[in-house]
C-alpha cells in the first residue's frame, strides 16, 4: 500500500510484476532512463521491452535509452474508475509518441485537464513505487530548449 501515492494523485498504481525478460527495462527506470530497443538487423524500434525482435525475429534488440521526449498522440480523461484503490478524481491516460516514433501508454501528470491536447509536447519522469520506478509523462513548454 502506497499511502503517499494515494494522497498525492488520483491514480492508484498497482505494483507491476517484473520478469527476467523485462527486468532491464525496470532497472533502467530506476536510473532515470526510458529504455527502447532497436534491432541490430532490421533497425526497427520496439516497445514494450522484450527478449527478441518482434519485427524480424532474427536480429538482437539493443537497448536504446529514449530521449524521453515526445508528443501526446491521444488521451482520455478518465472520470470513472471503480477499481479498488482508485479515488473519484479524474486523471489522464495518454498515448505518447516518443521522438523515436514509438507509441507508449502512460499517465499525463501535472497537466490541467482542460489543457491536454493531441500534439502537446511532453517528457518522461519517474515515480518511485515500493519496488520500482514507474515512467510517467508531464507537459513541457511548447517553446523551450530542453537541452
Amino acid at each position: 500500500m502506497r499511502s503517499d501515492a494515494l494522497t498525492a494523485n488520483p491514480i492508484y498504481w498497482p505494483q507491476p510484476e517484473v520478469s527476467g525478460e523485462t527486468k532491464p527495462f525496470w532497472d533502467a527506470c530506476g536510473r532515470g532512463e526510458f529504455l527502447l530497443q532497436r534491432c541490430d538487423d532490421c533497425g526497427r524500434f520496439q516497445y514494450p521491452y522484450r527478449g527478441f525482435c518482434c519485427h524480424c525475429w532474427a536480429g538482437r534488440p539493443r537497448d536504446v535509452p529514449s530521449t524521453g521526449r515526445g508528443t501526446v498522440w491521444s488521451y482520455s480523461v478518465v472520470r470513472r474508475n471503480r477499481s479498488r484503490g482508485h479515488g473519484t478524481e479524474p486523471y489522464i491516460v495518454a498515448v505518447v509518441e516518443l521522438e523515436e516514433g514509438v507509441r507508449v501508454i502512460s499517465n499525463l501528470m501535472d497537466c490541467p485537464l482542460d489543457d491536454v491536447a493531441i500534439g502537446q509536447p511532453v517528457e518522461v519522469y519517474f515515480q518511485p513505487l515500493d519496488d520500482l520506478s514507474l515512467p510517467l509523462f508531464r507537459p513541457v513548454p511548447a517553446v523551450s530548449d530542453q537541452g
Partner: protein
Amino acid sequence: MTPTKTRAAIAGAYEHPTRFAPDKSEWLLMAEACQGAIRDAGLRPEQIDAFFTSATAPEGGWLGACASVMAADYLNIHPRFIDETDVGGASFGYYVNRAVMGIEAGLFKCALIAYGATTRSLGVNVGTVRYDDLTGQRISPMPDAFEQVYGTTVTSFMGLLTQRYMHDYGLTSEQLAHVAVTMREHAALNPDAAHRKPLTVEDVLSSPVIASPLHKFDCCIISDGAAALLVVHRDLLPECAKPPVWLAGFGESIMHHEGGLGDWAAESREMVRRACRQAFDMAGVGPADIDTAMIYDAFTVNVVIDLEGAGFCGVGEGGAFVADGGLKLDGGSLPTNPDGGGLSSNHPGRRGIFLFVEATRQLRGEADGRQVPGAETAMCTATGAAFLARRGSAAHILTR
C-alpha cells in the same frame, strides 16, 4: 447481386427475453436459450454434434477455464467438436465461422453456439475497472505492467481510440450521439429492450463523461442475457421447422500494437475492412446489396468505424452518415440494429451472438414492429477484445 451460399445455415435462433435475472445463474440462462433455439429449429438436443461457447468469467459469471467442456457437461450434450476461441464480445462471430468451416469440412452437421451471462445481477463494472481488478490477478509482467498499471479501463481504451479518430477523421461527439439516439429509437420498438425511454442528442452530450470523449450514453448498457444459435448442414434443413438463414460469407481479422509502431486509429478501420472484404468476396456481394446491418455497438464509435471499414461510406464520412439518419429503421439507407443494439437493448458483456439472432429474425420476417421491409440480405460486423489496441473483428453476410 444474389449472394453465393455456403452449405451452412442458421436453423434456430433465440434471444432470452430477460435483461435482469438475479434469481437465475448464467448457466441456467444459457440452458434456457438453448431450449429456445432447439425449439425454434425443430431439432432435438441429441442431434447436436458441435458446441461453441465463451467463458463468462470474470465479467459475466463463473464459467471460466475449459468453458466448452464445462458447459457441455452442464447441458449434458455430447459434441464431437468444441471451441471457445476468445475475442471478447466478437467471439460468437468467430464461432459461426468455425461452425461453417466444420460443416463445409464434413466434421459435423449441427452446431450449437450458446451464451449466458449475469453481469448486471453480479454488479460487475465491466467498462470502468482495470482488468486485473476484475480478475483479482496481479499486474502481469507482459503486457499489463506497461499498460494496466496506469489505471486503464475498457472505456479509457476506447476513449483513446475515439479521441484520435476524431483528430484524424473529423468525427465529432455530436455525430456519435446520433448513434445512441437512433439505437434508442429502435429499442422503443422492441418490447424486450432494456432501455426504451426516448433519448436526445442533448441528453447524450450532457450525460456524465466516463472517459473522454465518451459520455455515459456513448457506452453500451450492462444487462443479464443469453442467446443460442443452431448452425446446421443443409442436409438437416428438411427436418427443420423454419426456413433457413444462409451463411453466405464470413471474414475475420485481428489487430495489435505492431511492436509500438502501429496506428491504432487507422488500423481499427483497416481490420474491419479486411474482415468485411473477405465476407463480401466469399458471398459475391458488396455494401450496396445489404438490406440491414447488425453492427456491434459496444461504444458509439464502433458503429462509425465499422461503417467506414465495411465500405458503407467513405473514410471520414461515418460521422455524417450516422448524423444524417443513415442507421434509421425509418428512412435510413442502412437500417442498423433494429433491436436497439447494445446501447439500448442487450449487452451482458459479450454481445456478438445477439447480432445473429436479430439478423435471423429480420431475414425470416419475424421482427414484429421493427421489421426491415423485404430484408433479404443482412450483414453482421463485430469487434471485440478491447485490451488497448489488441482487438479482433468478424464479419458475416447472411441471406434468406
